[in-house]
């Protein structure tokens, strides 16, 4: 039996929007740094694969 009993709420809208802008800025910086599209997609593949374990 698990002994973890706390819960996490969905973050507030301003908080979520700030994360969105952080992502947009990071993407802009990545393009300035000369990172290729394929490299970005592979980065997303790693993130997606790991988070794929957060399944129902």
């Amino acid at each position, binding site marked *: 039996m698990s002994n973890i009993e706390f819960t*996490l709420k969905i*973050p507030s809208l301003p908080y*979520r929007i700030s994360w969105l802008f952080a992502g947009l800025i990071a993407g802009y910086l990545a393009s300035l740094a000369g990172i290729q*599209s394929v490299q970005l*997609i592979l*980065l997303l593949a*790693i993130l997606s*694969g790991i988070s794929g374990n957060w399944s129902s």
Partner: protein
Amino acid sequence: MAGTIAPVVYRDITSRKLNWMMSAFYYTLGSIVGGGLTGLLVAYVGRFALFGLDYLRSIAPFFVGLSAILYALHEMGILSMPHFQRKKQVPSHWRYRFHPYVTAGLYGLMLGAGFMTFIPTTSYIILVLAASFSGSLITGLLILSVFGAARALPLWISGFAVKTIEGWDNITSYVHITKPIMRQINGLGLAMIGVGVMLVA
């Protein structure tokens, strides 16, 4: 992950580490192969079905990037986008039908393919779009093979870190309660990739 794969791999983890490692290896192998085959399939479809029209190739980066940003909004709960998924778990009866190594490999194959089970985050959809619009079978293979390998990665980390069945239960609980955070992280990643792909192209 833990809830599905743990029954295959943890049962001997305390006393028979080698058996667990073999199961985890076959799971990882299956996951990479499943992802790779899916990547080949969608890239093949994209290459031979969609690219009869050359103008599609020129707008592909913009389309993939824009889709990534829209799905970033979806992950952050700001906008609702279609979330295609087959809402199925891997068949639990395989654990009793097959040898544990075979079961682990088959589970890896299904989960690595992605579309055959639940898809918790929509970044997978962007990967499929990118693979199909890449116009290259090798690129499609690479993208979803990496997805498959990454899908198996947490199993190795948690497998070495966790020594007891109670530990697995705790991990399952952590996975459940951190879902909102994981979706935020995916949203951030999607926004980043969306802008990056559009600007780099």
